[in-house]
């Protein structure tokens, strides 16, 4: 379990904290969604959960952060990389540029970890298969579309077989088909035991989540099952988009009709 308890974070030179007393727990085999408006601090929370803040970004962290019971606050970044990896928003910017092919790019992470050759190759192959981009294995990653690059980045992270996977808006710029692929891959990774934290804006993402946490102005406002959280009408005031189904049901009730007419929920 990855546990944040009472964690607050301040960027270097900033006058105020971006995160306040955040409590969050990520359990193996589950996907936790992180919802919130643009400036609510989702990206910051992703950086802190993944350890990139304060190690690479600077700033001050207060509170407790444990992974599997161990206090990781003094661990160097490369030691954390064995356990938790983070995906960021700009796909092109995350490419290492050091690989001629998609396969090389995906194998970059496992190779860095110093895994034996066969394991590096097999994890890379498996990740390519999981994300559905085996046909791109020999392509130059820098020549792919943004959506394809995002798939490559995610495959690269999955290839490291992390126990904890933090993703900042993984499906934000993908078309519906690619988004579905990625969400399926994320679910598959969870089934295999990974704990996923996924910050997103798109409502489709919540279908892949076991729990959703709502972030507002740097505070966790609520945590719970997706249905429960997202059918709360207050979410729109927090800048979170209502899933289509929820909106429909609400409109039906407002119109005086029985929402159950819609049939079973998603």
């Amino acid at each position, binding site marked *: 379990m990855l546990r944040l308890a009472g964690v607050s974070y301040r960027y270097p030179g900033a006058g105020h904290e971006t995160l306040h007393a955040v409590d969050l727990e990520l359990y193996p085999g589950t996907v936790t969604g992180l919802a919130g408006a643009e400036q609510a601090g989702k990206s910051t929370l992703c950086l802190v959960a*993944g350890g990139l803040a304060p190690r*690479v970004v600077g700033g001050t962290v207060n509170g407790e952060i444990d992974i599997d019971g161990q206090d990781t606050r003094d661990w160097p*970044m*490369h030691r954390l990389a064995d356990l938790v990896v983070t995906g960021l928003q700009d796909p092109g*910017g995350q490419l290492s540029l*050091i690989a001629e092919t998609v396969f090389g790019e995906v194998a970059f992470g496992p190779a860095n*970890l110093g895994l034996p050759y066969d394991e590096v190759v097999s994890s*890379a192959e498996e990740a390519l298969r999981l994300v559905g981009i085996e046909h791109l294995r020999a392509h130059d990653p820098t020549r792919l579309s943004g959506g394809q690059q995002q798939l490559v980045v995610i495959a690269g992270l999955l290839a*490291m077989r992390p126990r904890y996977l933090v993703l900042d808006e993984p499906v934000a710029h993908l078309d519906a088909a690619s988004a579905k692929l990625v969400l399926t891959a994320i679910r598959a990774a969870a089934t295999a035991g990974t704990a996923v934290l996924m910050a997103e804006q798109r409502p489709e993402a919540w279908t892949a989540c076991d729990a959703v946490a709502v972030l507002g102005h740097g505070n966790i406002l609520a945590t719970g099952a997706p249905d429960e959280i997202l059918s709360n009408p207050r979410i729109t005031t927090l800048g979170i988009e209502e899933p289509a189904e929820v909106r429909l049901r609400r409109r039906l009730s407002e119109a005086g009709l029985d929402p159950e007419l819609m049939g079973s929920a998603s």
Partner: protein
Amino acid sequence: MSATAPLPSARAQGASPWHELDPLTRLVVALGTVAAALVLGGIVCLSLLAALTVLVPAAVARELREVLRLSLLLALPLGVSVVVVNVLFSPGTPAEGALLATGVVLRILTMAGAAVLFYRTTRPAELLASLQYHGVPSRATFVIHNGAAMIPRLAERAREVTEAQRARGLDTEGNLLRRGRGLVALAAPTVLGAMAEVETRTLALETRGFTRPGRPTLLWTPHDGPVQRLARWGVLLVLIVLVLEHLAGVLPC
């Protein structure tokens, strides 16, 4: 060990004995040739050098025509200037000037040839893997590889911004101030965009274990051997001898 699936051969790996050599060996020859060309001055010696370390390997690699063509292309503008300057301003007779000029031109050609040969026969990824195999830290190979890889990307980005600005009516004619503003509008996004990417890439590399001490797993290993190792040390030795002879003033050419 031969290249396996992870590193597909774009330039027909193993197409010739020269290609089969460890990229490090090819690099040492290229660097050695340039260094020797700087030290040697005589026409005979330079010709021998060029023949031995540029022309012969190029022929073996079946790249002779391309190497000659590109070397001439690179060296020609400079070569012409050298001849003109040295014949017109020669402290002695024009003939002496021409002799000097020929030496300089040969030197330029040899250096260009060595660089072109290396560039034509070695892929950056191969060189990278070879350097890692020989123990160069991955931080260094990262910078070297990406340094070369960034060049077309930066030029591409500059072109994209140029086109975007053109479409928005960047005035390529007009007074200096207007053109000035337009050009700053061109340069600023290119440079600042590159800087923003630096931040993202730093985070991405760190999370993927880039800073882990020790060597990453190699996906490809070069064909190295005792003969090549000997040859590399041999090149270094010859160079040292040449430099010492040059300093002592006893160089025959």
